[in-house]
């Protein structure tokens, strides 16, 4: 009993001492294996590029664009890319607090632009031009419905089907499935101003909307709701757009008077002013980034229906499309 008592503390002390010595000079192996695998990138380039804080808004199409740009910047210039999962509003606040550098797909937020652009706000963000995607928002029905009732795609016929769209949530009226609250939307006003016998019931998220449309198509259920393109789900279930009165400028102003379809939006890139002036090579990449709805859908489908990690899906697309990628490189 006695001997170990006396010896053990000494042993422990020796072990601690040895450890301290070892750890002081340790780490060599990891450093080597690190650069072997190439995951850390090259030091000189890393310091040149620095950090890129990429906001990732909550829809898969956005993820596709964000990760393609981000992975490209990381692999080509060794940037440290932070993907930050944020809703739009929070992302914009991030420009001002310095937490966000890039919003890669903006659907038009006049109120936020007023707050953060130099013209009338604090100047922490600036417009970096279109990303090539055409944003289409509108009212959609599942394909089976459009096929069986072709006239349903005209808004003027909607009221005669209102009863068929009724659900437990719509209180006798037809149910219109609204969108995630963070999206741009005027459906309540449109329903009211076009005298439609519908009630807007929010789906609350992209996921819920997709689930609802998927189920509606599979079970041939009646469903009409807010949807948009580009969106990978369209390749799985090609929803059919309902024609609302065509958009003309001003028909959504003020919001409560909206009585027309949503405009086609040129999706654009917004970046932090400070980051844009940083001279990072990634700035050029973001500035040059432009691709089509089909491109985005392809990546988004890899992420969503194939269940690939966004990083992997992005890298695969980059490998498969060298010519497009080449065009985004700094000159």
């Amino acid at each position, binding site marked *: 009993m006695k001997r170990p008592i006396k010896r053990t503390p000494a042993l422990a002390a020796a072990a601690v001492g040895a450890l301290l010595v070892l750890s002081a000079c340790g780490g060599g192996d990891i450093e080597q294996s690190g650069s072997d695998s190439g995951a850390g990138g090259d030091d000189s380039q890393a310091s040149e590029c620095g950090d890129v804080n990429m906001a990732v808004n909550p829809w898969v199409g956005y993820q596709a664009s964000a990760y393609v740009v981000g992975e490209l910047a990381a692999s080509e210039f060794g940037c440290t890319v932070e993907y930050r999962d944020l809703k739009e509003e929070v992302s914009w606040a991030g420009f001002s607090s310095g*937490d966000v550098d890039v919003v890669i797909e903006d659907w038009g937020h006049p109120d936020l632009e007023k707050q953060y652009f130099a013209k009338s706000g604090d100047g922490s963000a600036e417009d970096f031009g279109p990303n090539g995607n055409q944003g289409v928002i509108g009212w959609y029905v599942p394909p089976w419905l459009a096929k069986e009732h072709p006239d349903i795609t005209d808004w003027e016929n909607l009221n005669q089907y209102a009863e068929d769209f009724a659900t437990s949530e719509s209180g006798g009226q037809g149910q219109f499935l609204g969108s995630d609250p*963070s999206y741009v939307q005027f459906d309540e006003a449109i329903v009211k101003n076009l005298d439609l016998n519908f009630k807007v019931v929010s789906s609350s998220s992209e996921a819920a909307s997709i689930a609802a449309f998927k189920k509606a198509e599979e079970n041939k259920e009646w469903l009409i709701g807010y949807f948009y393109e580009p969106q990978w789900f369209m390749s799985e279930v090609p929803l059919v757009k309902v024609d609302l009165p065509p958009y003309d400028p001003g028909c959504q102003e003020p919001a409560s008077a909206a009585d027309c379809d949503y405009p086609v939006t040129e999706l654009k890139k917004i970046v932090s002013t400070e980051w844009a002036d940083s001279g990072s090579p990634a700035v050029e990449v973001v500035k040059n980034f432009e691709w089509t709805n089909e491109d985005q859908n392809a990546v988004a489908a890899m992420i969503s229906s194939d269940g690939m990690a966004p990083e992997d899906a992005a890298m695969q697309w980059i490998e498969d499309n060298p010519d497009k990628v080449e065009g985004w490189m700094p000159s």
Partner: protein
Amino acid sequence: MSVTAVRGGSGVEGIGSLLRRPPGWLLGVAVLALWIAAWAGLRGNDTLALPGLGRTGLHDWFTGLKGDLIDSRESNVLMQVTGVLADLLASIGGWLQELVAQPAFPRPVPQVGWLGVIAVAAWLSHAIAGWRITLLVVASFLSFGLLGLWEDSLDTLIVTFFAVGIALAIGLPLAVWMATSKTVTTLLTPVLDVLQTVPAFIYLLPLTLFFGIGLPAAVAATFLYALAPVVRIAAHGIRSVAASTLEATDSLGQTGRQRLLQVQLPMAKKTIIVGINQTVMAALSMATIAAFVDGPGLGQPVLRALSAQQVGTAFVAGFCIVIMAVMLDRTTTAASVRAETVARAGGRDVRRHRIVLAVSGAAALVLVYLSRTYLWAAEFPDTDLGSSVAAAVQSGADWVTSTFDVVTSGVKNQVTALLLNPLQDLLANSPWWLAAVAIAAFALVLGGVRGCLTAGVCLAGIYLTDLWNDSMVTLTMVLVATLLVMVLAVVLGVWMARRPSVDTVLRPVLDAGQTMPPFVYLIPALLLFGPTRFTAIVAAVIYAAPVAIKLVADGIKGVSPTTVEAATAAGSTPWQVITRVQLPMARGGLVLAANQGLLFVLSMTVIGGLVGAGALGYDSVLGFSQGEFFGKGIAAGAAIVFLGIMLDRVTRRAAERTGAGVH
């Protein structure tokens, strides 16, 4: 003999009270009948309904406040201070992340790899909680790695511990202060109430104005949410120290400081540790939600999976959180027991314990060194376990959703048509003043004059938020969900209390249900029921039922075995024992379960807003999502707080009144 007294006695008493004054339920029915009569005539008038995207001057005023706040960023002292704080949090947090979770540039891996982290965690848990817990801790950490979520898990742990550390540093002194001063108690209690009932969504966005996004905001939000339990419970513990001991030690001439440090704190230690345990659990749940402001950790894969509808992936991340919760819960609990047993074991054991710690500590340091040096010990080896579990869960969920689709729609439609819609019609389509009077009348019946007064104040508050109608719709959902929770709680609680084997099986399931982030089961609920109020109710029931079931089970177990024995000896059937002896005698537990059920259900309001619940939940999410509706979100948060305080106080008063009836 005593049984006839119990059964006969209650019968006589029942008749007696009937003669004296009408019982509560009769008054309740009367109020309901009057309400329905008035509603039939006035239905649809003055309902104060506001369209989903409608907002009022008050809401815009709140929104304006936010704008002013942003504009004053450069000059606002508070924001300057929080900005500095945020930087501090970010750098400490970043350092911790590089230490154990994230690549520490230029290294491709953290300073200390998985082997070292596990070694240190094992050593620590052995030091404070014993070897059984060590096994649990090691297994937990290994499962984080094996499920492929090592980095996210450690990030969650960092945020949790960081926030808990601050919560304890601030909360324990507050608790001492509260325990010694009535004034402080009066001032702090409503603040703590608000901290615990305001939905996270409401303060996440304003917090980003002060703390930015990412780790600092996550730590700040988690801290705010986790502060209340430790302050409350520790203050209660300190206050409950036996007066006779305080007097005896005072008589020896101790100073106030000696009294606190040598007597009050050591004697309240067990209760304080319960408080710490609760704070850790609260922190863990908020650390997940903080993913909405880019808080690092397991919340991120959960949210990403939610938006891509991947039940399997979300489940794996959620499962890691459950494991972490169980690990932290058992460790803190065991640590409190352990400290005493070690002290009591006497000198020799203490010495042996120290030797073991020294040796194992040295071994742990060697492992830390290895994990700094060799890649195999630094980076957790890739496994397919996570993805295969995800795939299995996914296919299971797919099967369930496709198979039970028809059944579930039926259930949903029935409950909606028979329960939800009529009640909502009554609450939300009554003129606001009628509903207010009726609710206040119910509060009077249940909670007496004081309950009625509280309800009145809260109803006035709700009216002032300009969200009366939405509040009534939310209240409807809360009531229906709580009803379902209580049905479950009574059925399962009785079963658990009467059959220990059922208890053994169910309890871990309930623990898991309580700690699993709700986002995980939102997806299958959505697939089964679509974006509806019923889906939100299902999610709320899953979240709230475990607590209520446990409370009912414990309440029934607390019924004196002698009474049950006597009832059985008198020839009662099991049904009679349950309905005439156990349930009535566990009344306190039932009311407490209802109280907790209501609050837990209410706290799911905003989560419900993510799956189509509408009303206040939608308003909150909208306020979080779109700048111009910020003020509406704040108003919705206030309405939720008013609802919460009203439901809590009325049920608590009701509990006190039944308690008074028992004695």
